[in-house]
């Protein structure tokens, strides 16, 4: 095999320029500030302490590591901060497989030789998370290497390319030193990010969460199971929580706030922007099991006398998600609900068409205190995607979307 694995390297003898054995390989190191996929040095355990051998001084790999430096010039190891050590930090640890969208444990690391500026270098190809790596780790040294190699060839490999691996590090200082940023994780669908976050231990969970931007964190937090939501939020500062909650859908944020202790939710509300804070307080008034408890306050409303062009203009400024955008509600100057225009009706109509001619009949709405199961019945009976919620004065106060109902129904199954 042209590749080399970490298991092959670890423990193998190291010979200096004169051919005398100086020690054994204890660690393989990477300097993330320079290049996160290239081996920068090898740490050798010798009888007089650990020595650091820069990769450039390594001349060959067969039957042991050969270096061009005489033993006397082998540098003593000062400290290993700022270096990613493969045996300590990667082997047997959990990492995030961004491509497979899950958390996996590293059994072995596959390396390969390459050249850079005509100099030989060693790079990480992938991490082995399957049986091949496990068997190699277990049997190396216990079984003759030729037999082991032929056995391993028969096991199909399960490896994740290094570019799809996101490291997990719970110490913030080390995260900075090792430049662990979870950029690739942030590009996944929020529901997948949430799944991954749920699979981690609490410290790692919080660590990963802290590296995400507010809007990514908000979307992911919405999808995380409520019991983890609470523990994540309790570990963050109130102002960061407020920033994230401002990016979340109001109904999801209100649900989460409602689950926290009164003083904690007060502390968070105080950090929020005034306009968001009032909306949050209003939503918190309502019982979770009613239409008002499930509704979002991000909805599209246009004056009922307007045209298609007015509706499209409102659409451009809309902050809500794809579910709420599917219906445009028509209200009068007091905010009373007059009608509902599905987006599908809008799309093909000429821009001068009055909106009132596009409303669906009859107009279905529900009172804010309607219990959840009646809301679900309405959705089923009228095949709704959205349901406007009104107060006693028939004013539009919010919208329940189909995904809320699906969540509610699943809890019942």
């Amino acid at each position, binding site marked *: 095999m042209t590749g080399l694995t970490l298991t092959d390297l670890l423990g193998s003898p190291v010979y200096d320029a004169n051919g005398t054995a100086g020690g054994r390989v204890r660690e393989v190191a990477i300097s993330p500030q320079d290049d996160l996929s290239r081996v920068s040095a090898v740490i050798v355990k010798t009888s007089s302490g650990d020595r650091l051998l820069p990769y450039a001084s390594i001349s060959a790999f067969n039957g042991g590591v050969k270096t061009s430096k005489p033993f006397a010039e082998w540098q003593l190891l000062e400290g290993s901060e700022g270096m990613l050590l493969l045996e300590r930090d990667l*082997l*047997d*640890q*959990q990492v995030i497989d961004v491509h497979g969208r899950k958390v*996996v*444990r590293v*059994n072995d690391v596959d390396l390969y030789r390459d050249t850079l500026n005509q100099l030989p270098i060693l790079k990480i190809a992938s991490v082995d*998370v399957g049986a091949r790596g*496990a068997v190699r*780790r*277990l049997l190396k040294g216990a079984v003759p290497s030729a037999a082991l190699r032929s056995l391993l060839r028969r096991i199909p490999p399960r490896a994740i390319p290094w570019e799809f691996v996101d490291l997990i590090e719970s110490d913030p200082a080390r995260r900075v030193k090792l430049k662990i940023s979870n950029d690739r994780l942030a590009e996944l669908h929020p529901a997948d990010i949430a799944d991954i976050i749920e699979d981690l*231990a*609490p*410290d*790692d*969970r919080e660590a990963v969460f802290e590296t995400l931007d507010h809007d990514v964190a908000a979307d992911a937090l919405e999808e995380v199971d409520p*019991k*983890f939501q609470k*523990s994540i939020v*309790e570990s963050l500062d109130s102002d960061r929580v407020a920033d994230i909650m401002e990016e979340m859908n109001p109904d999801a944020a209100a649900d989460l706030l409602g689950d926290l202790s009164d003083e904690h939710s007060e502390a968070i509300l105080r950090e929020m922007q005034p306009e968001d804070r009032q909306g949050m307080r209003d939503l918190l008034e309502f019982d979770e099991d009613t239409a008002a408890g499930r509704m979002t306050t991000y909805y599209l409303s246009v004056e009922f006398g307007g045209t298609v062009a007015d509706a499209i203009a409102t659409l451009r400024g809309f902050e809500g998600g794809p579910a709420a955008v599917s219906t445009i509600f028509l209200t009068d100057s007091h905010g009373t609900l007059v009608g509902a225009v599905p987006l599908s009706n809008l799309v093909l109509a000429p821009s001068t068409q009055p909106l009132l001619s596009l409303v669906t009949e009859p107009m279905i709405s529900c009172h804010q205190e309607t219990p959840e199961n009646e809301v679900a019945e309405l959705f089923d009976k009228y095949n709704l995607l959205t349901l406007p919620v009104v107060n006693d004065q028939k004013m539009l106060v919010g919208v329940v979307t189909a995904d809320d109902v699906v969540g509610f129904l699943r809890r019942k199954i």
Partner: protein
Amino acid sequence: MRWLRRWKIQIIVLFSVLGPGFITANVDNDPGGILTYSQAGAQFGYSLLWTMIPITVALIVVQEMVARMGAVTGKGLSDLIREEYGLRMTVLVMLGLVITNFGNIVTEFAGIAQSMELFGISKYLSVPVCAVIVWLLVIKGAQKNVEKIFLAGSFFYLTYIAAGVLSHPDWTHSLIATVKPPTLESFREKGAVFTVIGLVGTTIAPWMQFYLQASIVEKGVTKRQYAASRLDVIVGCIFTDVVAWFIIVACAAALYAHGFRNIASAKDAAEALRPLAGQFAFILFAVGLFNAALFSATILPLSTVYTVCEGLGFESGLDNKFSEAPFFYWFYTLLIALGAGVILIPGLPLLKITLGSQVVNGMVLPFVLVFMLLLINKKELMGEYVNTRFFNAIAWATAGVCILLGVVYAVGLATGNS
């Protein structure tokens, strides 16, 4: 029927408060436990009661340690061993655990067989049927609800407390025996070392440590909420050992005192309940034994499979489909099939196997303890929650005593007197 419903509601409220510690403690009183305690009382009377206090203290310390590790790190014990000591060590520990857990699984099915035989149902009928029931219960995920029913059934153990009282034991003698330290003579008595290892092994079984830590992690207990869990663990340990004490006393009074020094079968153990239930002793005992066996049979194989899958990195979890976690489901099915299968071998001395499996527990325990101690004293893992000197002393002492007893027993076996 209204009083029945109110009673049921009260029980449900009670259980919503009880946690992993209490459940683990109840599963601890499985057939292996019941029969080991019964044998200890029948064969030695009150003279082994002194073990109860040290064992309880050791149990509390050990269980508290795993609960603390689970709450602080948020990871299971096999995960921690893997991350800190690597794959090879994990494989060795898993092998050891599977062997001792398998012994326990066989014991649960032995309990099912023995309890049903008390009703005259052949083991060839009861064991396969129950194996299928257990398999279905867990796979179909009804286990959580059934857990509550089993826990209710576990209050059957209170009957042992009642039996213990009604058997008019020599209170003075038994209480003195509980606090008086043993003499070296008592260890030389035939079977004493074996039984003491069995008592330790059945009370502080290795599988319990992995199961409790995993339950704590699954429940999402964090460092902040840890104090409540600690109470739950301590209460559970005390409850289980109080019941154990009464089982020993009841059997000592009912059997030892009347010259029945050896329990040959579960039928003899049922005799201990005669003071309380008279004719119904058999029924009470059989139903309780069956309940304990079935409960443990749903928990033990599942816990073993979870532990191994997590340690070795296999996909696990009942929310996965069969195709997503093949090893998990296959291994689980294999454990149940083999466990039940062993019992079906004709002429098997079920009681001897039961007692022997608890002794195996006691022999494997020190190795698990050593790992736990190494992990819980790591500052980078536990932060300020590392062990106090007191806890370290007790835990190391427990490990040391177990190893010593094991060596003594092995030497005894080799030289022909055990």
